[in-house]
């Protein structure tokens, strides 16, 4: 076949500071093919995608497009080569119309003046191709949902004459139905000769559309196989590097003393949560995005006013008015967004770790630096954080070590109650195991822990009991030793509504309703 229409990468290598993001990776995608790219967070998927999109320049390695060596130095160059990319965080503008979004940067559509009617006519065929023939091109993009925006982003790439399409987690914010439509579109585009690189975490989707599956781990290529020669199980174990054991539960028996008692706690986003947590007990908090997992943590941490209910913490009445108040009463909250809410990225490890206990480290107006150093060092040792020095900015650390510094920051407040909001989000396997060990140690030392997580195996493995939230209300309280993922999912999606009504009190007596 004369120059086959394909993109071929050879030995791509990219290093960011200390981490090798891509290590001599070979990758190719042909016209009329869906090539799935799998790997854990930090495996190098996004780096590879960003190299193909011209956002990142590789340190070494070659790329050829249609058999011709190509240097993709800018996004504009990628566009010229016929490579379109749809990022996970859509690079679209909600304030502009659908048509204007599609025309941005397009040589045919963009003139000095905006020509509404011509623009609408120009973008209609592309919208029709992605299954949106009815969409009004003049309507503001922000007035449509995220699913539509996702499809508009693909239409935009098609309008730019993309022969190759990179889709980065395209269904992550879509409902199941919208995801179905998108997958159908992917198959259709493939059949009309588009080469598609499909980056996703969702194995079922991958095996529905992909022709080939490539697995990356820690920046290296692990395997590239035709989809029909591999399986979901094999792909997952290749991604992780070993078979994951989710069965071994890591709990110690909680003590008898009640640490936290909640009675009908309600805020703007949480309704009627009643719960008691014993010292050393780990209560998992499960629920879909927006179910109130984070809102419950923020309520306990004094970030949202309580509209109803009462609580006691360590025997004292507890009603925090601010985070400072909560910290003083012995509550700590490890937020979900490590970079945006948890850490001061440009600031040193030392200052980050001691930020929440400065009021305890002061002598007059001054910080007792000697004592600070000692406390921080000890705590970092306890959380197994590897840091080059206390003066290094936390931005220089890996995600896992950043998380350990953040844990140290909150453990230094010596909390009686610790609310962990997705504590293993975006950390690698090794750090994850460390975080689990730390949680188990804290539990053994008597800290009451609420563990919110989007990963059900994690909840089943670490918790004693699991509180399932649905739309801000408690949908069930399960004994983790006997609970199953299906059970949690059914409660979280409210498909298991019992005629008995209030499901929160329905659950086994193993829960300590003392």
């Amino acid at each position, binding site marked *: 076949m004369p120059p086959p229409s394909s993109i071929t990468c050879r030995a791509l290598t990219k290093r960011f500071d200390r981490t090798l993001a891509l290590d001599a990776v070979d990758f190719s995608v042909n016209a009329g093919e869906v090539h799935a790219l799998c790997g854990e967070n930090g495996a190098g998927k996004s780096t590879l995608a960003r190299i193909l999109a011209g956002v990142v320049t590789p340190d070494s390695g070659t790329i050829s497009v249609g058999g011709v060596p190509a240097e993709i130095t800018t996004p504009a160059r990628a566009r010229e080569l016929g490579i379109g990319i749809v990022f996970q965080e859509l690079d679209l503008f909600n304030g502009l119309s659908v048509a204007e979004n599609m025309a941005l940067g397009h040589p045919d559509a963009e003139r000095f003046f905006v020509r509404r009617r011509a623009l609408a006519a120009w973008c209609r065929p592309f919208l029709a191709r992605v299954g949106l023939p009815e969409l009004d091109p003049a309507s503001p993009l922000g007035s449509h949902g995220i699913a539509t925006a996702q499809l508009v982003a693909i239409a935009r790439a098609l309008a730019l004459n993309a022969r190759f399409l990179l889709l980065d987690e395209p269904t992550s914010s879509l409902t199941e139905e919208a995801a179905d439509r998108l997958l159908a579109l992917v198959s259709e585009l493939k059949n009309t000769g588009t080469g598609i690189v499909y980056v996703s975490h969702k194995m079922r989707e991958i095996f529905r559309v992909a022709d080939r599956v490539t697995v990356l781990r820690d920046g290296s290529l692990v395997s590239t196989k035709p989809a029909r020669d591999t399986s979901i199980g094999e792909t997952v174990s290749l991604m992780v590097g070993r078979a994951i054991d989710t069965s071994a539960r890591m709990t110690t028996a909680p003590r008898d003393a009640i640490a936290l008692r909640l009675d009908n706690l309600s805020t703007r986003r949480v309704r009627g949560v009643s719960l008691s947590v014993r010292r050393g007990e780990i209560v998992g908090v499960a629920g879909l995005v927006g179910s109130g997992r984070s809102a419950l943590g923020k309520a306990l941490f004094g970030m949202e006013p309580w509209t109803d209910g009462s609580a006691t913490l360590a025997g004292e009445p507890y009603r925090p008015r601010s985070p*400072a108040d909560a910290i003083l009463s012995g509550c700590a909250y490890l937020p979900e967004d490590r970079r945006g809410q948890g850490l001061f*990225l*440009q600031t040193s490890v030392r*200052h980050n770790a001691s*930020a929440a206990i400065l009021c305890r480290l002061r002598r007059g*107006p001054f*910080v007792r630096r000697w004592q600070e150093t000692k406390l921080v060092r000890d705590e970092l040792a306890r959380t197994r954080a590897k840091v080059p020095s206390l003066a290094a900015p936390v931005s220089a650390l890996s995600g896992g070590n950043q998380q350990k510094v953040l844990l140290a920051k909150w453990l230094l407040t010596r909390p009686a109650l610790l609310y962990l909001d997705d504590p293993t989000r975006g950390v690698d396997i090794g750090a994850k195991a460390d975080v689990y060990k730390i949680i188990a140690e804290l539990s053994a030392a008597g800290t009451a822990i609420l563990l919110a997580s989007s990963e059900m195996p994690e909840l089943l493995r670490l918790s004693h009991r699991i509180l399932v939230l649905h739309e801000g209300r408690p949908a069930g309280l399960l004994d983790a030793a006997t609970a199953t993922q299906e059970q949690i999912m059914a409660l979280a999606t409210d498909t298991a509504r019992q005629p008995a009504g209030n499901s929160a009190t329905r659950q086994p007596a193993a829960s300590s309703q003392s």
Partner: protein
Amino acid sequence: MKLPPALARFREILGLALIFAAAVIFSPTGSGGENIFLQPDNLTDILRQQAEIGIIALAMTLVIISGGIDLSVGSLLAFVASLTALLLVKWQPALGPAAHITVALLAALASAFLLGFLNGAVIARLRLQPFIATLATMIGVRGLARWMCDNANIDFGFGGHVSARFADIFSDKLFVIGLWAAAAAFFYVLLEYTVFGRHVRAVGENERTAGYTGLPIRFTKVAVYSLCGLAAGVAGLIHAARSYQGNPNDGSAYELDAIAAVVIGGTALSGGKGSIPGTIIGALIMGVLTNILRLRLIDTNVEFMIKAVIIVAAVWLQSPRKAR
């Protein structure tokens, strides 16, 4: 490539050294062949001249590190100078001169502090952007100062007049330089060694994280603007003494000179990062530059153009390598 902090500091000093060396080379020589720039009197003159901007810039450093900006300092300086003159010249209390001066001085400083507090309160409580809140104060306080003086300068008296005594103290070279040095030491210790200093940096780098950490965000903001008002007040006293009058129209564009000194000193306008030594160096770079250009009798307008280049070059040199 990232320079270690010690070397990064060195880079700012290097800028000052370069300008200083250039000044020595281009300095005119006196009748005895001496280097006029290097005369002790000239060097201390530079310090005295930069003290007003220098003191304001110290507090401005804290404001900028906290993620804000204060445009009202020039107006505040004029207001304090005018108020001091008013209290010394037009007010005749039954007090001895020392008590009269003390009362006038404290009243002027207290009102500057309060106006700064007002800035902080509007920013922290009403959540107005610092640029807008202090722009409003800049305009309003300028009006207040002019209205208070009926648009006229208030000249100090001569001889044994109480205002002349005040001017004697506050225009004394050593006193003024000492005041700057004391303020520099105060702000340096405040920023580097106190809990409050940590809070200022934390709030400026990431206010959300600061909130999730339980830090007193509002207090921190109100405090930095109050301190900035106070610093503008101190500069206002020096200004009144040096110009021997209270002129409600003075001090315009001082806020920009102060901000320039801060950014030349390596403080990031985006907040979180910066240092007091950097700001002092920034103020000195501007001072040496002005001085040598005046010694060479170069047109003030050319001075502005050169300053513009210096600001861009200094900030560019300090930006991280990747951004270049």
